[in-house]
Structures are given as structure tokens and as C-alpha cells.
């Protein structure tokens, strides 16, 4: 069964729906652990520093992205942990998932940046192609 589940989140509505599905699957296994992974994007650090003003405020901004999902996990009584990675979201998730013994990756189909997606294809699509474990993509 799926014991170690990585849930890639970016603070979007889709990521929350992905979290709901991850919880459903996690319930199938007593020992299941949901690893909520958020990637702090290198490209955005400059703007985040400018707008957050202090490291405390920045920490809060990051935590707000995972807060709703944490609450969901608590309500559903699912074991979870939070991992914050730094880099470019797609490759960073792939690297993390392939380096750990992950049973399932759950990811939302569409992130926050629709313009970039039109030009580049979505982060989730790129991740799908390159991870070595089963992926659940949530619409």
C-alpha cells in the first residue's frame, strides 16, 4: 500500500484539492505519512524579501501556504510533516522524490501561474515525466 506519500503544494486551490485526495489515500494505511512539500522558488525570493520586510514575516507568508492543508491533516488525523525546499519547483520536487523512498506523489494539475503554463507547460507535467514513482495528479 501507499505508506510514504509526498504531497507537492504551492498554496493554490488545486493543491488543496490534491491534499484532500492525499488524505483519502493515507487513510488506507495505518502507518501512512503525508510529507507536505513546498518549494520556495528562487525566482520569487527577491519579491518575497521586498514585500515581507523581515524574516519573521517571510516565515509567516510561507506557513500560510501550507496552513490550510496542515489543518486538514489534523482534522483527518493523518500523520504529516512539512518540508520546505529551495530552488526551482519542478526539478526540486523531482530530485526530492527520487532521492527518498516515496510510494506515491500527489500533485495538483495547475499551479498559480497560468501565463507561464501556456508558454512552458505546467510544472506538474514536467514532474510527471521525470519522477520514478507513481503520481496522482488532481484536477
Amino acid at each position, binding site marked *: 500500500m501507499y505508506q510514504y506519500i509526498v504531497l507537492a503544494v504551492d498554496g493554490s486551490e488545486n493543491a488543496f484539492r490534491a491534499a484532500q485526495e492525499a488524505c483519502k489515500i493515507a487513510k488506507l494505511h495505518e502507518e501512512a505519512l503525508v510529507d507536505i512539500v513546498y518549494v520556495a522558488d*528562487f525566482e520569487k525570493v527577491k519579491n518575497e524579501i521586498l514585500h515581507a520586510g523581515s524574516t519573521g514575516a517571510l516565515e509567516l507568508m510561507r506557513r500560510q501556504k501550507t496552513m490550510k492543508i496542515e489543518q486538514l491533516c489534523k482534522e483527518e488525523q493523518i500523520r504529516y510533516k512539512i518540508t520546505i525546499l529551495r530552488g526551482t519547483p519542478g526539478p526540486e520536487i523531482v530530485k526530492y522524490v527520487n532521492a527518498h523512498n516515496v510510494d506515491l506523489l500527489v500533485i495538483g494539475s495547475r499551479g498559480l501561474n497560468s501565463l507561464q503554463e501556456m508558454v512552458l507547460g505546467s510544472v506538474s507535467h514536467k514532474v510527471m515525466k521525470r519522477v520514478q514513482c507513481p503520481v496522482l495528479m488532481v484536477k
Partner: protein
Amino acid sequence: MQTYQQQWFGNIRGDILSGIVVALALIPEALAFAIIAGVDPMVSLYASFCIAVIVAFFGGRPGMISAATGAMALVMMPLMKEYGLDYLLATTILTGIIQMLFGVFKIAKLMRFIPNAVMIGFVNALAILMFMAQIPHIFGGGMTTYIFVAVTLIIVYLVPRFLKAIPAPLIAIVVLTAIAMFNGFELKTVGDVGTISKSLPSFFFPQIPLTFETLRIILPYSVALAIVGLLESLMTSSILDEMTDTKSDKNKEARGQGLANFITGFFGGMAGCAMIGQSVINVKSGGRGRLSTFMAGAFLMFLIIVLGDLVVQIPMAVLVGIMVMVCIGTFDWGSFKYLMTAPKADAFVMLVTVATVVWTNNLAIGVILGVFISAIFFVAKISKIKMSIKENVYYIEGPLFFASTESFQNALEHVEASTVVLDFSNSHLWDESAVGSLLKVVTKLEEQGKEVEVRGLNTLSTKLYKQLLG
């Protein structure tokens, strides 16, 4: 914290490669900043070499790239125009001394208190000024110039989608310089605005009269450069701290920046500071240690010495295109949303900072005014005491100190009830005026024949109260 040796040799392969990438990306910017400042390209190339190498040894943030920058070039432009290079070099030396003093007296840490509204205003103003400096180069060159600027922009935005290893600005330069050279287009080149000498910088004293008159000319510029340079350097180091999840020594960085400018002035280079864009490129290319900064500077100098003859052939239009890209990257596009969502006072401070800089052409004045206005807003905000009344109990909310005592007294001017309870559990008495005004209010109410009870004073407030009343 890593040891100094680890900061140098902890990531040799990554640092060497990223240093080379940064050096390649640095050349077009260094040339463009020379043109903004109105100096010979060598002045900014020497500056970039000296500053990068010195900061590599003495800076506080490993992996950060420092060199000649647009912000500094903009500040020194009027000085250069009016007094010439020797005064600019003297100003650079003095800037270094001021920054070192900032570092020694730990003033650099105070930069933390600059509100983010001012910082956002600063980067926006910087982008606008840099863009305005490009306009004369865009117009008047004819159709060929427009096309070269446009093609440069297309290359720098499209190529990174497919090829990430080589910096796109460099590709634009190589391809377009080759096209311009072989087709004999009538284009202004770097060679038309300055000369490139293929030699290492050498030590000399700037030729200036050592008088008070000289000091009067260069001091205001030095102070402005010191502030602008430290502001950008400390912001860049925070960005790198966050990107790499490590800490850095801000005062050491200020001392390193100061020393770098101090020495650079004697070697014919203009003042510089940390570069946000290049530092981000460095970290993204795998650079983490001091070696990457050193490599960036050293390899830049090597390239100039080897390729000097080709550098003069670079069309100005390509540099202008690259600068437009830098401006777009520097501008904080989140500002428009910020103007809508941020508190009105913050949005106002941001706009004032931008407007002042664009109006005065001086980044330092904008920052100082921005900080000043936000300080006033801050005091105005916390000087308002909130008070809610429930069954003769007055709940005071907010700190009571010299700026807020007046609104406190006014609020208790007219009281109807015969017994009054003042509840301070959500307040704090900060100073003598707070204790004094509380006494005054109580006395006045008692004179009117009312019964007054003060409750909920926290421990520190009670201590201050007792201390002042013996």
C-alpha cells in the same frame, strides 16, 4: 557557520563554473553602467574586477557578487559630468571610508529599520532611472538601432527557454556583434563612446586639490553612494541568506564593501556594490562560496584582456536592449497589487520615494525622505490611543508615551459617570509623560468629585509609576 576555509573551498567545482557564468553575464552590464555614469568602459570594468576580488576576501556574504552597479552609476552621473574622473575616483575612496565606518560602528545593522515600502520604492525608482538613461540611446539611431534593440530583447527573453547554460545576454552580444561587423551596419559601438585598454589596473592617486572645497564637492556624493551601496548590498545579502538558507554577517559585509571601494578608487575604478541580479544568477548556477565571487572578477578581467579588440565592436543598441531587460527584472511588478492591498500610508511612502528619486535624480534623497515620512506615519499611528467604554470602565488600548498622551487626555476630558474605572491591561506606560498624564487625568476627575480607580497596570508600568512617584 562555515569556517573561512570552507567558505572558499567548500564548493570548488560549482563555484568555478558559476563564477565563469557570472563573468560572462557581467561584461555587458559593466559596459552599460559605464555609459550611464558617463565614464570610459575601463573605469567600470576595473571597478568590477577590483570590487569582486576584494569582496571575495573581505565580504560577509559568501557567494554574493559585487561589482560596478547601475544604482551607483546613476548617483555618480552628475558628479562625473560636472567635475570629471579624478573627482569621481576621490569620491569612490571617500565612499569606501564612510562604508567602513558604518561597518565598524555597526550602523549597517540599522538598515533593518528601513521599511519595505521604501525598499520597494527604491528598486522601482532604480528601474525607472535606468530605463530613462537608455532612452537617448534608443531614439536618434534610426531603424537599425530599433531592430537591434528589439532582436536583443527577443533573444534575452526567448533563448533561456531552451538553453540555460550560457547567459542569454552574452548570446545576444556575440550573435549581434558578429552580424553588425560582417554586414557593416552603421551602428554606434562601444568603441565610439570609449576605449578599452588591455592591461591590468594600476595604482595611482587621483589628481585633485586636497582642499575643503574639494571635500564640499565630493562629500555629499560619497554619503549618497555609501547609503545606496549599503542598501543594495544588504538587501542582496538578505536575498542570498534566504535562497541558501544560511546566515551572513551584515557589518562585515559593510566593512568589506567599504574596503573594496576604498582600494578600487586608487586603481581607477568607480564605486560599486552588490548586484541583486548577478548574485541570483550565481546561486542558481551553483555558486555558494567566496571562490565564485573571486572567479567572476578574475575571469572578467581575463576576458577583457583577451577579447578587448572585440568588445569595442559591440553595438550600443545591444547593450541598450540588455539594460531594458535589467530594468524590467529590477522593477517590482508586485507593486501594482501592493498599491491596492497595502495600508494607504505604506503605499503613499512607496510613491513618494519613487517620485522623489525621479524628480531629484538621486536615489539617496528618495530613500532618506521615504524613511523620514514613514517614521512620522509610524509615530502618528501609535500615538492614537483607542478607548472603549463599558459600564463606567474605560478600556485603554495601545502604548501610552509622549506622543500618545494628548489623545489619552482628550478622550477623558468629559466624563459623565460618577465612578470611573481606567483599565490599563491592554496598555503600557512607557515614559514620564505617560505617568504624568495619568496623574493629571486622575486628579482632574477627582476634582470634579468623581471616584477613580486605576487597574490592570502591568508590572513594568507599575514599577515606572512607583519609581517616578518615589
